Each structure stands twice: as structure tokens, then as C-alpha cells.
């Protein structure tokens, strides 16, 4: 008996309904067979049955050696099992830096005080849908300001101010964010410009706003 639990190709409606139950039913069938074999042991010699079980999951060209935890049916190559992996390394290694080639050309870093549509927001679009952002630094804090709308309500413009200690790239994650919706639902906001710590914003309705980052309030 060969058990093939492959899900490599779409099945038919009836197969679909039985797909989840198939392994269970097959296992039950095997129990019945094994029970029969065991039962057969009570019969006179010569009537025993021989059962071969191969429960390996097969999938087209895949072989068990290529299986991985996230194997995608039909695409075992995504497991990227090296053909000739190196032997396991020693477990007592300490940290040593991996050389990284020096970058050349002008830095693409976004300068402080710049409005940018590339600054990644630290939240999902389902929380706040960001149009663009701006950042600056003062008093030992980095300020990231994002303009857009509420995730579930594109009519409600919002400014989100995130602050964290200015520690460069050490990744402290000790930050916090606060949202400041406009008083009226005038659509998503976009930062049009910045003068020192005052941002000029325009909503999709055409309404304009000024937001003072220092006081965290609309002017």
C-alpha cells in the first residue's frame, strides 16, 4: 500500500471534499488491514499477508531529500537544498565580522528636514495609509512625521508623529507614535513642504493645513 498525500495538482470537487479526510480514511483502512493481518495470525499458518507502507510524501520530481518545512507543492526547488553542502560547522564559534564591499557613489540616505515618499512608515497601511513623510532631529530625538489618512477611512486626514532616541542605526526600538487627525474629514494629507519644524500639508479636497511638529499641533 503506497500512501500518497501529495497536493501537487488541483483535484476535482469530490477529491477536494475527501482530501482532508483521505489521510484519516487511509489510516483507518490500514488499521483495518493490520487488524486483519493480526487477526490472520490466529488462523492456520500460510494465510498471513505482507504489508509494505511507504508514507513518504512524493511530489513530482521531488524526493524526500528536497523536502523543507515550507515546501510548495510543485516547486520543490524553492527549498534550495544545496547539492553538496559543507559539513556542519563547529558549534563553538565566536563572532567575527563578514566583510562587506564599500558602497560607492553619493549616499541615498534621506537628509534631515527632507520630505520623502520613500521613508518607510513604522505601521501597516491598515493602521494609517501614508502618502509621504519627513524627518528631523532635535534634543536627542529623531522625529519621523507621516501624512496620509486613517487606514479604514480615506476621508480622514491624519498626521502621525513618531519619536525615538537619536541613536543612529542601533535599532533601540524605544520609540512611540501619536496620531493627529484633522478636525474635519477633508481627505488624505500630503506634506507639501517644510520650514524649520512647520509642515505645510494639503488634503485631497484641496484644504491646506500647517502642522507644528515641535508642539505637535495644527496651526
Amino acid at each position, binding site marked *: 500500500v503506497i500512501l500518497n498525500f501529495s497536493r501537487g495538482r488541483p483535484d476535482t470537487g469530490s477529491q477536494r471534499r475527501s482530501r*482532508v479526510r483521505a489521510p484519516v480514511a487511509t489510516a*483507518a483502512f490500514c488499521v483495518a488491514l493490520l*487488524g486483519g493481518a493480526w487477526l490472520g495470525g490466529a488462523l492456520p499458518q500460510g494465510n498471513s499477508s505482507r504489508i509494505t507502507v511507504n508514507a513518504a510524501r512524493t511530489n513530482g520530481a521531488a524526493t524526500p531529500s528536497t523536502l523543507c518545512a515550507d515546501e510548495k507543492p510543485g516547486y520543490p526547488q524553492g527549498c534550495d537544498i544545496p547539492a553538496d553542502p559543507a559539513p556542519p560547522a563547529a558549534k563553538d564559534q565566536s563572532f567575527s565580522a563578514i566583510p562587506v564591499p564599500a558602497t560607492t557613489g553619493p*549616499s541615498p540616505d534621506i537628509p534631515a528636514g527632507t520630505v520623502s515618499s*520613500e521613508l518607510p512608515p513604522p505601521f501597516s497601511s491598515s493602521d494609517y495609509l501614508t502618502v509621504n513623510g519627513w524627518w528631523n532631529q532635535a534634543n536627542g530625538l529623531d522625529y519621523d512625521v507621516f501624512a496620509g489618512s486613517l487606514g479604514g477611512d480615506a476621508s480622514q486626514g491624519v498626521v502621525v508623529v513618531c519619536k525615538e532616541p537619536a541613536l543612529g542605526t542601533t*535599532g533601540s*526600538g524605544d520609540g512611540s507614535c501619536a496620531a493627529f487627525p484633522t478636525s474635519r474629514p477633508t481627505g488624505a494629507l500630503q506634506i507639501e513642504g517644510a520650514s524649520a519644524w512647520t509642515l505645510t500639508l494639503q488634503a485631497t479636497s484641496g484644504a491646506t493645513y500647517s502642522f507644528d511638529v515641535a508642539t505637535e499641533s495644527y496651526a
Partner: protein
Amino acid sequence: LARVFARRLLIATLLTLVAFVAVPAAAYGDPTPPPESFSFYMSTVNQSDLYNLGLTFGEDVASGTYPQLTLVVLDWGSPYCTGSGSGSCGTYIFTSSGTYEGTASERAAAEQFGEGFWVGTGGDTSAHTYLAMGTNNYGSWVGNSTNAYNHGQAWSNMVNDGNTWLSSNGYSSQVSMRGGTDSELDWNGPTPTNDWAKGYESTWRAYFWDYGDAAGCPPFGGCDNGWNQRDVWLQSYGYAPAEPLPEIYNEGQAEEWGNLANYAYEVQSSLMSFLGPMSQHQACADLSSPCTGEDNTPDESWTDLYNALNCSTCDDAQTPPHVTNIRWKLSENMGA
């Protein structure tokens, strides 16, 4: 002999009944969420920090704090290439100061995580972590299809190089690298976002996980921002390397993905295998953000996805094997 036969016949009958009744009952019983793993919004490429993070994680896995098999996403932020083609790409990482990092730095940091994990697990050589190098579809630069394709290709090359490094250093039996993308429908339209996936597919040797959303999609209407279910299916499963690890921050998002799984079966004849959901519960706590209505715990994320995939009319019933909880802080609260 007849009594022995009769007794064994009775036992065999009972065993068969157990197989047909009790086992299915267990299979369809209350689902139990798998233990959580974690993922990170990345704000540093400091190799020592990443080595220590992997080391601590490996030790936690070996001690049983985390499961033996883990899915970890390192989210490196929004894509960008400094030149034409795919030779000089990277991302704006999640610092608060507009920092760009190239793929070489990001790969080296992730390799350090892998090495640290290898060392940290010690004698627990059966532990394995799948480490996804994540980016997203945010920003105006990646809204251009050519840019998106080139970045996807560069990202795939980076992942391939990472796996080669892990293998050549003897870590591949416990650490595997994957790609990843937080493809959110409202950040960019389907054409450039799908083109990123096509670029990845052009050189792929390792899967990428889509840990994005299906915002607005059925059963809640039409998908947001010009997307449709086919586009989302392509991004999360239709392209050869794509696998879904969707963000499930609330029940509504789970329903969107459950509906997508039905669409995939009925329209595309495709059975989507979900790796599991991503929650942002810890990220919200790290930023002191209430994330109102978007704050599923990992267990809630998994249960919502499970229920959405196993409804009475569902075409693609399954039990997602994993759940990961994304966070900000690299060094604190490990072993949570």
C-alpha cells in the same frame, strides 16, 4: 482457536471503529494554535547585534521557549536601487533617520543571525529556522515597474547568495534563507507590485513569503487601489516562488484571505498552502501604539485565519502550521 479468533475479531472491529470515528473527531476538533515565532522590523545592519540576536534565539529554541521549527521575517523596509539594473539595490530601513542600506550589508547581517542561531542551538541540531529577507511595496520609487522588477531580481540574488553562504559555512542544515515582501494593496498598484515578484522569479531558488494584505477584497467589496483577487493571488501564491504568510491583525483580514483561497481554487484551480499568519501584537506594544482593531495576539491571528480557511463552504480547508509575531525591539523581551 475459535475463541482466539473471535476475541481478535472483536478487537479488530473496535480498532476500526476508533479509526473511523475517534480519529476524524480529533482531526476536526478545536484547533490549537501553534507556538509563536517572531519577526522584526529592522533598523540596523550591525553584524554583532544580529549575531547576538540569533545566538539568543538559538538558545531559546534549544531550551524550548520557541518551537524547533521557526519562521522568522527580517523586514528591511522599502525598496530602492541607487543605479540602473539590479546591481546596486537595498532598502530604506526602519531607522528614524532615513537610512539606506545595500543588500550586501543586509545579507551579511542576516548571515550573522544564522550563524548565531547555529551556535546558540548547541547540541539541539534538529532545530531549524527559516529566515526571510523581507522588503515591501511602499514608496514612489518602487511604483515604477522597471524599478520594481530590478529590485525583485536583486532581492532574489541576495537570497540565493545568502543560502550559498550558509551552505558553504556548514549552517544550512539548521538555517535556510527566504525572500519576503510586505505587499500592501494601498501602498502601490498591482502592476509594479507584481513586477517585483516577476523580477524575483527571474532568478529564484528560494521561496518568498508575502506577508502583506488583501485590503478591501471580497467579502468586503472590491480590492483596494485597482487590485483584484487575481493580482493578490499572483503575488501571494500564483508566481512560482510566492507563498502566503498574510498579516492577520483582525478577523476581517482573515476573511479576505479565506475568500481569496476560495477564489484561487474555484477560478485558478489552485490550492493555496498558507504558512500561517503574521500578527503585529508585539510591534504595537513596542511603539506604545494601541493599534485599535488591529491588535490580534498571535493566537487570535492564527485562529481567525484557521476559521476563515475552514468554514462550511471553504474549498481549501487546511491547518496553517506557523504563526509569527512581528516586533521592533531587537534585544529586549526575548523569550517572551
